[in-house]
């Protein structure tokens, strides 16, 4: 690679955040370089995402970003032609115990205030939405019909292709090894293959976010844990929304699944206690743990064949909210890390926000959003819909 080639912005990581950020920057006419250690786009954590897209969060920042993401995903095909397998099936959170009923209902006011189309449904009405749900003990649940799902693989390719068309450069199989700092501010990155200059560097390195931040001397509290996921054979449509069950039981916290546009069901579970670290090798405990909960919730799933399983990383932060903002320690260095497993749904909306930040065009709403996501917040709160 040629050394000393200069760009307006360098993005570290061609993943769920880096790729749409590069697109937003290229759309703004900036010269962008994206560097990634993997051989192609989205090969870190993006391809391990199951594809859920929701604005149903517990805080206005993520709701706002994801509402914009949903607009981008849902209109992509008509605007740009390529199919990202968007399906507007909605999100449903089930309640079988008063605890979950209370949590979900408590969140409704704030969610609605932030512009979310969401309602509580008592059991009979909820069963209209998910007819195969186990009715025994069902209290009800929330349903947000504007949420949906898409293919992370196809979506990131769509962003990537468009970003390249608009002039963004992507260097793969290349690892960022350090930063170039000059006059107290960022001047570029060093990689295992060369050196590139830019006045702005964005850390969008996902589970490697803390490592890449450390290159700037910044300590960011991002620590990955791992979740396993799987995909089934394809069957005719029988399930509309993403189903989320947040009941904790021994061995696991929440789990969730939906039927993709291809007819396949894709599912994932959060182990409890968390499995911290970078290990993404398959474990024997995943399938029995998740299958018994899913089959209990939707008995019809018992005959559905599991095809493939994998494990991915959730770059977690102490409070479960992302870390997005300019670094105070080093001018020109931006953090866009700690997506807590929601990089895919946050990505396009966040990408545009990053674009506005870099161009100095943030709105008042943006600035409010960024206070929630500030790297320098106290991390005292706790996301209720992880």
């Amino acid at each position: 690679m040629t050394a000393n080639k200069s760009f307006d912005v360098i993005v570290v990581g061609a993943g769920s955040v880096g790729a749409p950020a590069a697109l937003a920057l290229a759309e703004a006419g900036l010269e962008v370089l994206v560097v990634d250690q993997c051989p192609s786009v989205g090969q870190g954590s993006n391809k391990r995402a199951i594809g859920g897209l929701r604005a149903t969060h517990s805080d206005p920042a993520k709701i706002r970003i994801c509402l914009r993401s949903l607009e981008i995903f849902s209109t992509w095909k008509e605007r740009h032609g390529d199919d990202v397998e968007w399906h507007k099936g909605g999100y449903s959170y089930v309640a079988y115990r008063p605890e979950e009923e209370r949590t979900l209902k408590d969140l409704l006011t704030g969610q609605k205030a932030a512009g979310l189309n969401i309602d509580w449904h008592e059991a009979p009405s909820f069963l209209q939405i998910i007819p195969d749900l186990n009715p025994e003990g069902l209290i009800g649940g929330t349903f947000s019909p504007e949420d949906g799902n898409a293919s992370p693989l196809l979506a990131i390719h769509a962003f990537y292709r468009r970003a390249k068309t608009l002039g963004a450069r992507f260097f793969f199989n290349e690892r960022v090894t350090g930063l170039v700092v000059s006059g107290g501010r960022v001047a570029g990155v060093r990689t295992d293959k060369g050196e590139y200059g830019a006045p702005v560097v964005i850390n969008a390195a996902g589970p490697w976010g803390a490592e890449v931040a450390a290159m700037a001397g910044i300590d960011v509290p991002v620590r990955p844990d791992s979740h396993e996921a799987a995909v089934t054979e394809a069957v005719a449509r029988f399930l509309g929304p993403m189903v989320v069950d947040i009941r904790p039981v021994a061995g696991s916290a929440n789990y969730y699944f939906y039927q993709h546009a291809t007819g396949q069901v894709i599912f994932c579970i959060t182990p409890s206690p968390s499995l911290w670290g970078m290990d993404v090798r398959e474990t024997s405990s995943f399938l029995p743990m998740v299958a018994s909960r899913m089959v209990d919730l939707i008995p019809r799933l018992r005959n559905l064949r599991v095809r493939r399983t994998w494990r991915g990383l959730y770059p977690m932060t102490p409070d479960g909210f992302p870390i997005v903002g300019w670094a105070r320690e080093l001018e020109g260095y931006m953090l866009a890390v700690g997506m807590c497993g929601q990089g895919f749904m946050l990505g396009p909306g966040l990408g545009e926000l990053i674009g506005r930040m870099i161009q100095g065009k943030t709105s008042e709403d943006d600035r409010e959003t960024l206070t929630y996501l500030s790297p320098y917040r106290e991390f005292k709160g706790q996301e209720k819909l992880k």
Partner: protein
Amino acid sequence: MYRIEQHPILPIPPRSKVSFTWKGRALEAFEGETLSSALFASGVRVFGHHAKDGAAQGIFCANGQCAQCLVLADGVPVKSCMELVRPGVRVEPVEGLPELPPVGPGAAGLGEARPIETVRVPVLIIGGGPAGLSAAIELGRRGIETLLVDDKHRLGGKLVLQTHRFFGSINAVYAGTRGIDIATRLENEVRSFPGVRVWLQTTVLAVYSDGKVGLLVEGRKYVLVEPGILLVTSGAREKNLAFPGNTLPGVYGAGAFQTLVNRDLVKPTGRLFIVGGGNVGLIAGYHALQAGIAVVGLVEVMAECGGYKVHRDKLARLGVPVYTSHTVVSANGTDAVESVTIARVDEKFRPIEGSERSFDCDTLLIAVGLDPVNEFTEKAREFGLPAFAAGDAEEIAEASAAIFSGKIRGLEVARALGCDVGEISPDWYRTADILKSRPGATVPERTPGPESGVFPVLHCNQEIPCDPCTGVCPNDLIEIDESDIRLLPSFVAEKAGKGCTGCEKCVAICPGLAITLVDYRKDADFPTVAIPFEFLKDTLKPGDRVVVEDTEGNALGRVEVGAVKSLKANDRTVLVKVRAPREYAKRIAGIRIQPPETAAPLDRYVERTADDTIICRCERVTAGEIRKLIREGLRDISEIKAITRTSMGSCGAKTCTPLVHRLFREEGVPDAEVVDQPKRPLFIEVPLGIFAGLEGKDEGHDRE
């Protein structure tokens, strides 16, 4: 209708009939057979149509690995090659995506669920074929507790599909015995060791990073096994080919073919064409003829067949044209194979325009090589679980080699567990290497000089590891240099004052059917030639006029059959005696069975214009789609997968992965530039309810 009613080697067991329906039509099946075989026996080849492009679907692997043969059985989508016929079952095609069957109220109470059990065992062997059984015998002999699992209903692996006598060494690996009988011998020995547990119908689904191995037992129960050592003897999988029409029902591999014919005794085809002249393709052709199936021809892209020459010659003598330096251009037909088009190839193996020919056939058997089933070994090694591999799972070779490498690996596993096995003789490793070796040099036929008395003629002209002929002569007159059984045998006219007695034992034992006996004693001008023949005795009768041929299948003349001898001692090898003129009696090696008109090409060649060369048959991804991406510069197979869905289908990337690599090579991309995709569990698809600990199938479809 499409049943094998009699067979020269295989017994036809009595079976009771059951009835079922297909699209509402009543059909008959045999109890205990799979739905796919029952459908084939009634002439049904198309089992449904793909959701993506409406392409016809039918049998492909016949082994539970893919989902091409999916049907609805009482409303539940099942793989018809794994599902046994139940009396009265209503079977329907799967047109597009199947419905997930609803379950009745109360059907799903997890109260009936069972926690997933973990079994600890010193040794887990995956696969009860020649290698796995041989290893289990060594471990059993030393009292080492072993669990042997196999996904089939009986032990033996592919041995149980082999009707021919085996090559190899009589001392080391039962050479001269038929594959089906070697399976029984090995199984009986394994069963004699109380320390060896055998779980049949048990499929390994995954090797996990926590050192556990997930098993699907009898299709209904999930069990985790924690082995001290894993021994992978899971055999091989067939490679495939990309050409227009390559996924039409009727195009499948030798494994599926031998399963239908030699296991299920179904006649899946009337007219078979074979692609690939390795041992697998050649032997499949022979098995087809034995089952009464016409073999229209065989193409081999190289100038010579890669399989043993004796196999090639045997097929050619029976009347099957072997087209070397030829390739398949297309399989033709709308919903199933109706004909095949082949062409001669140039030095770069590209079809030569104008050399195309088409043949009427209903089945195209693809036998273009094997790859080891090595994903379990690789995962185990990645995860630090001690693992060994033997047989084809380690390196593709003949079954005789698998028997021997299994035996050695069994001892190595025992030693790794601290058992004193002494030193494993270096001779064993040498024998293993010899058994694995590819065919060596071919020499011109050595026709013996004298034309008097009686003596065998050895039509065996290629160095292969094989020696049964040396073990049967009462006067020890057939010899192979003991240092290497790959060397050619020779006949010594006299030893210790004794010569050939004309006992014919050597004629009957030769796995290559490459020994005849010429007897001048009664009539020196019209000597009698004894020819080995593995067909039904009444195929030929005394007085029949037959075409006799030389070693390679060139006709020598028409002669009269004198006698047809079927002795018990000759184990189903029939000896046909003909009287032939002195001029060519010694050159006679076989009798033509198939009339030449069977193999005649069509008047004009059939061109398939549809751009339907499929690389990923599960997700219906064409070669054109992938080529385009390669030309755009993509090198990461994961990226191609993400864009096209190649390898995301039900077979778990088993079929398309080698084809994708081949496309890269065809596009001139060096292997080193191509990034392979990671292999992920599961080995086969399994219902969620089974992982939940719900045993068996849903009651909803077990009852009417």
